[in-house]
């Protein structure tokens, strides 16, 4: 197996464009010179994986343009190539990568858009949410409610940003021909990505609702999370908010909570 292993390692180096000439002599010229034949495989490799990233990050691509995205995808691929035969996890480090990608430094919101798009990708492939009735809460002794803790449903992600990421995302969907100008100074947004049934949805949360969910996600008990949310908005309609989240399977009472 040594010769086969050597060949495959040399081929891999060629795919990365190292051109170390290890393969020269092993591949005869055909209809085209051997170097050109290898170029076909280099192109396939680069293009197919760039397309895989384009499929997960269409908003990013639209924001930076197709040419710049190809350049970015190429750099990403070199830093974080696929390590599995299925590509479901390929692209998982885009947000971290793009945050330190100097050529995109003029778009400070790009990393959060990447986080949002990866959240959509994960929710799409996640097991479904299980709705919970509000009676789970109403049946509990009132004194136990403040101590109740939750976790986020499997097909849910919470993305908090200092930028209006939901607005940017909406304005850069394929069907939007003329995106509005988004004021980056209008404040941050917290977005709930979820899949109530078989379509991924994005809910832009009011600041108080965003705070409530963020606190609950961190494992804080309901009482504390509610106090923090009410500090942002005294008029928050907690009952309708909670019943909505429970019905969509966003919040699941944790077993380590009392009486749940």
């Amino acid at each position, binding site marked *: 197996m040594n*010769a086969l292993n050597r060949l495959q390692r040399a081929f891999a180096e060629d795919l990365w464009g190292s051109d170390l000439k290890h393969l020269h002599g092993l591949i005869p010229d055909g*209809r085209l010179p051997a170097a050109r034949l290898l170029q076909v495989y280099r192109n396939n490799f680069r293009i197919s994986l760039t397309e895989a990233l384009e499929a997960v990050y269409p908003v990013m691509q639209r924001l930076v343009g197709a040419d710049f995205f190809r350049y970015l995808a190429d750099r990403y691929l070199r830093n974080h190539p*696929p390590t599995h035969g*299925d590509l479901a996890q390929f692209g998982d480090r885009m947000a971290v990568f793009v945050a330190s990608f100097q050529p995109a430094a003029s778009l400070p919101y790009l990393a959060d858009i990447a986080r949002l798009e990866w959240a959509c990708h994960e929710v799409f492939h996640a097991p479904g949410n299980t709705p919970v009735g509000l009676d789970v809460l109403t049946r509990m002794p009132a004194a136990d409610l403040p101590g109740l803790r939750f976790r986020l449903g499997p097909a849910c992600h919470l993305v908090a940003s200092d930028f209006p990421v939901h607005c940017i995302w909406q304005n850069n969907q394929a069907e939007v021909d003329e995106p509005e100008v988004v004021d980056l100074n209008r404040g941050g947004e917290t977005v709930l990505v979820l899949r109530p049934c078989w379509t991924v949805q994005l809910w832009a949360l009011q600041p108080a609702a965003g705070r409530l969910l963020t606190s609950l996600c961190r494992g804080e008990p309901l009482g504390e999370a509610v106090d923090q949310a009410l500090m942002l908005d005294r008029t928050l309609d907690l009952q309708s908010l909670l019943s909505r989240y429970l019905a969509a399977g966003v919040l699941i009472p944790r077993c380590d909570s009392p009486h749940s």
Partner: protein
Amino acid sequence: MNPLKPLAPAPVVDGAIPVDAGIGLRSPHMQALLQTRPAVGWLEVHAENFFGNAGVPLHYLMRAREYYPVSLHGVGLSLGSTDPLSQPHLRQLRQLIDRVQPGLVSEHLSWGAVSGIHFNDLLPLPYTEEALDHFCRRVDQAQHVLGRQLLIENPSSYLRYRHSTIPEWEFLTTVAERTGAGILLDINNIFVSAFNHGFDAETYLRAIPADRVGEIHLAGHSLKQFEDGELLIDDHASPVCDQVWSLYCCALRLLDPKPTLIEWDAELPPLPDLVDQARLARDCLNRAATRRQETCR
């Protein structure tokens, strides 16, 4: 058969792949397929797109499975690699097989990963005794874990290795004989490789044992001009060309009618166009079956 006025097939109980024409189902066609339920004999999907035992793609696949037999076509197991066979990948595939109950499961005569990096491509193997022994061991391992027979598909290729000593048809046939695997014969790949490497496609077909072939693939390719020559590129982005249809009819004469799949992966047409290609394949299958009956009489 008018593909725009679909017949509704009865819900499938048995998942066996019939000797009929099927289509490669890609996600942009999923909704149209479920809404129109076109008259195709079966469906094939890329197995890896449904790994994880959950999620939206699997939900729709299971709905489609109520109406059609399904074949799982692997593209990422990298059977020819010298890296250890990925046990998590095999477990995922096994889980999917248990869920979907596919009629056929297939993979490629190729490699796609080395030193833990996957290149998402079907890269050519050297056809040597060393590679043959290695590939057979890997097929044995995979079949053992999956608990069933695999079909192995001949790839299209753009280059050959100087140290290859075995013709591809002989390599593929030997793999099937030694491991008990079946053969998924891609007629378009034979055509593409025959042009690119200058061998005779019919010689290839005549070397394949008919009883080993479990499935046939058909697809489109394109001729790419370079300044110093031209090459056929297996891009699955167009209808099956006349020459590949002819080669397919020749294959049916030599190998008997087999379940036949139309693959189309890039620049996808509307679903009815794909169904139309399957109808052409079905016509060829029907003609081949009639001819066979006449010969037997």
